């Protein structure tokens, strides 16, 4: 897992920095200098890491100064579920707008993923939505667009 993730990241960085270096060559030198000075070593470092993974001896893994992901039962399924919910929330926000997406997501998550009871699901949904609406909308007038779905149907 470690090695695959590290390899993926290194490959991604090589692609990104490669693109960056190529794009920078089209610019006037003042704009291109820094991206090149950083981009080239970045590419080299990523390549070094990738090579180390592929051909190097497997060290007693040096742990990063960071947390470690837990491995429990059903890890893959749960990870996919979590990712799915996060992405679904994003899609809901874009399609339906924050004011609708928030209570919808909170309620559905509590009921479907969390399998909580009706009472507590409704209570938390209302609480969250109330704070969001009262604070960010009523008080601060932050702009929350109404969601693409409404715009498509509104204009047709």
């Amino acid at each position, binding site marked *: 897992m470690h090695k695959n993730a590290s390899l993926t990241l290194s490959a991604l960085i090589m692609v990104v920095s490669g693109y960056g270096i190529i794009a920078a060559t089209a610019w006037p030198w003042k704009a291109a200098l820094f991206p090149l000075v950083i981009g080239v070593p970045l590419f080299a470092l990523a390549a070094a890491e990738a090579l180390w993974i592929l051909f190097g001896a497997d060290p007693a893994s040096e742990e990063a100064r960071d947390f470690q992901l837990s491995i429990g039962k059903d890890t893959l399924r749960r990870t996919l579920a979590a990712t799915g919910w*996060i992405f679904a929330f994003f899609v809901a926000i874009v399609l339906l707008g924050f004011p609708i997406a928030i209570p919808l997501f909170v309620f559905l998550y509590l009921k479907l993923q969390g399998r909580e009871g009706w009472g507590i699901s409704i209570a938390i949904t209302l609480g969250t939505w109330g704070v969001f609406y009262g604070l960010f909308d009523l008080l601060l007038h932050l702009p929350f667009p109404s969601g693409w779905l409404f715009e498509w149907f509104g204009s047709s």
Partner: protein
Amino acid sequence: MLEALLEGLVLVLQWKALAFMLLGILLGFWVGLLPGLGGATTLALMLPFVYTMQPVEAFAFLLGMHSVTATTGDITSVLFGVPGEAASAATVIDGYAMAKKGEAGRALGAALASSLVGALVGAVALAAAIPVVRPLVLTFGSPELLMLGLVGIAFIAALSSPGGRGMLRGFLAGALGLFLATIGQDPQAGVARYALGTLYLWQGLDLVPVLVGLFAIPEIIDLVVRGTSIASAAPAGKLSHGAFEGVKDTFRHFWLTIRCSLIGTFIGIMPGMGGAVAQWMAYGHATHSARNAEERRGFGQGDVRGVLGPGAANNSKEGGSLIPTIAFGVPGSTAMAILLGGFYLLGLVPGPDMLSKHLPVTFSMVWTIVIANVVTVIACFALLNKLARLTTVRGSLLIPVILVLVFIGSYTSNNHYGDLVVTLLFGAVGYLMVLAGWPRAPLVLGLVVGKIVENNLYISMARYEAAWLTRPVVLVLIAITVAVIVYPLFQARRRAAAARA
């Protein structure tokens, strides 16, 4: 000077000023706590209410509100792993790790106590620096700011894991951060670099969506996988070590806390360094205090020193950033820019006058910072242990709420869906990094320091050609940069030698 000090205190202790300060504290508490309620935006919203107040009252209100956000921002960092303010991101690393071990109360206590120490140090520095502040700031020109940026980058070495492999990954993350900082319109030729055809990326990546994605999202995924409460690694599932233990920790590591406060104050004084840098350098410095490889590995798994350092620095930088604002009319941060607007509103002209004619008003600001922080810490203390119990609540109840906070916090940076896309993208990157064992802190540091280094490099070269390298302060900073890079290597070698012996 002494009488101005006392006069300032008397000004603040009037009923009206105190009342407004308390109101500001109450507001600031929530602003810091909730990601999405940015300190700067709210200050801008409050400005109109300030029109009708007297200068001292107005500042008691604005400053009271502002100084508190740095303290309470740490609370959501510790409890949920979501930075409440951009300046509280470093607290997430060890603070949230402690929460997972069941020590949320201790982490909160440490964060708050170190915040108080930081704020006090910042205020004392502000007061003490008043005679020397103008020459001090004037000595630090673009070459010196460039070097400070490079010192910051050198801390990437400190934030990486020890050993060759660890350093490689640390520098990889740091270089990636520096590279990402080049996105946006560049100030030399006006080219919209790496905008990928979108208008959103013209101004570059905003820090908050990146932070929130990088740190909070992997933790949320992990919480779902664990299927338990946040404090799942707590022995016997009970919370241990309440808030008071955190306070004791602050005193156990007193000199570290003071040093990190000084780092924060110093970075705060430098205009243009930005509030985010101080906490990471303090965190890096805190890791230097690890006495052996075992302790070093403990950072990131819940070492209280990883909370003390950033906690102190992000408060002390506030006192520091008042200095250029008051003495020169040059705001040290967006929030300061708004406070500056408040100055003009109230007929005060920042500049030498504030340090002579209006010295009592300046001191009243110092006192406001002190009193506001003391009041906040005392008020919060009663809550800390109760707040800590949130970490024993079922994860599935908290996760949707945390996600709402994450998305709103990200969106309110630019009120643009692009913010959410950035958060999701960096959520994926953060997840991969954790899986791969790469440190995330250097990426943030690179992102934050990138523009500082690039811009000041061009200015220094254009203005001084190569002569800037020989300026005295620059030479000192070069020495510090080398020291910061070499010290971990030196430590590692010493430990290896000790192990062999």
